[in-house]
């Protein structure tokens, strides 16, 4: 009997260690996938400035984060690609502070196998392009805007059959990176990222063709008392972070498009 009790005790102890509550001064940030490179840099900057604080960033589709937070997922901040989601969360009582816009996103054409800098939307009708990757317009903000742009340009009927849908805008980017789609209509911030910028150029899709990609964030209800969450939100709205965002093509609230 004794050896069995010892084994059980050890297992319980191990289990407890794994589920031990996180120490204070740690936050988890849910960020839309278009923020991959930008938010990585911003978080790094924050960590350097506040070495005692722990910040973890998780990337995914805005719609999924919305559903998860609604159902109690342990995120402290939510940076959405579409401000509508945080607004909805606030309406449902999941916000600790008012929703704030943090950027305007842009979509761009990007290709790893062709020269996107010379393209326009019309180029998509080229028979050499058989697959165009976009995020699923049904639920991804960047995908929705891509569809709007195509429709506004009168190209939807001509190229719809070439579209392949990614689960999120980063998934759509995978398709283009691996060459399975010749071209993608993806987030500008991703096209400017180090991985992609070195492999291909981009063409900015005119923002007159689609609804603005107003990106907003919110501090969730569960982080209402977290001083760290507030610190991080302030940092994101501060000058260093804004510089990073600008570098990744985001248009900041109050500023005009530089291009």
């Amino acid at each position, binding site marked *: 009997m004794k050896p069995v009790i010892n084994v059980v005790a050890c297992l319980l102890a191990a289990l407890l260690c794994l589920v031990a509550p996180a120490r204070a001064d740690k936050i988890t940030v849910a960020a839309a996938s278009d923020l991959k490179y930008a938010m990585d840099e911003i978080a790094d900057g924050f960590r350097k400035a506040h070495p005692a604080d722990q910040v973890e960033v998780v990337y995914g589709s805005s*719609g*999924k984060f919305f*559903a998860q937070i609604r159902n109690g997922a342990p995120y402290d901040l939510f940076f959405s690609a579409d401000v509508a989601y945080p607004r909805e969360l606030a309406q449902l009582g999941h916000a600790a502070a008012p929703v704030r816009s943090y950027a305007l996103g842009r979509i761009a054409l990007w290709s790893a196998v062709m020269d996107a800098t010379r393209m326009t939307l019309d180029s998509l009708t080229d028979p050499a392009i058989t697959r165009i990757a976009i995020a699923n317009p*049904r*639920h991804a903000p960047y995908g929705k805007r891509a569809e709007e742009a195509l429709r506004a340009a009168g190209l939807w009927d001509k190229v719809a059959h070439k579209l*392949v849908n990614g*689960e999120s805008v980063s998934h759509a980017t995978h398709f283009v990176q691996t*060459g*399975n789609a010749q071209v993608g209509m993806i987030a500008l911030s991703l096209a400017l990222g180090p991985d992609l910028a070195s492999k291909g150029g981009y063409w900015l899709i005119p923002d007159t063709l689609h609804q603005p990609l107003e990106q907003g964030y919110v501090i969730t209800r569960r982080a209402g008392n977290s001083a760290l969450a507030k610190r991080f939100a302030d940092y994101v709205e501060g000058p260093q972070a804004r510089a990073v965002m600008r570098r990744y093509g985001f248009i900041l609230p109050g500023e005009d498009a530089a291009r």
Partner: protein
Amino acid sequence: MLLTDSDQQALWLTLRLAGIVTLILLVVGTPIAWWLARTRAWWKGAVAAVVAMPLVLPPSVLGFYLLLAMGPQGPLGQFTQALGLGLLPFTFWGLVIASVIYSLPFMVQPLQTAFQAIGERPLEVAATLRASRLDAFFTVAVPMALPGFVSACVLTFAHTVGEFGVVLMIGGSIPGETRVAAVQIYDHVEALDYLDAHRLAGVLLVFSFLVLLAIHVWRPGTRKIG
């Protein structure tokens, strides 16, 4: 109409995919299972491990690597292009190939177990009764392993119907081509159309349950015939 047109399309696509994959795996998996059941080669364990790999690989990982392999720079992609077949991602047949790989152990393992259970004796008997090895396989091994075949086909079919991660990675969610029911449900959820999601998921659940129930109520070999 219980389901929308696009939902019906997704469901039909799912059934077609599962059916074709099951048939292909029946042809491909049976010889593999037979070999694994009877060989004494020293590298049998390695083959069995490779066959079982899809069981432990996360589907999205498998999907990602298939996306690379089937892409224009990947070995499979270059092969299909050389044959003039284009690229496999985002096509129905690309899903078929991926599903065949992903569901392989679900066909091979039950068959292997069934073949092993037969043992050597019935085949020796068949040989003494003038049956060649191929003849003995079809007239003795297969009938004796019939419950195993049923199990394997049901598992493979059900597993393919439920496949999500791989399809999502390489499918591109194209309606009528790669937007299978599982992906359609996911899209409904992502778009916050929960009612549509519930309906389609419900239909899928009921269908799967009925199929499994039918199989378990009628099991060849457990009934005494004649």
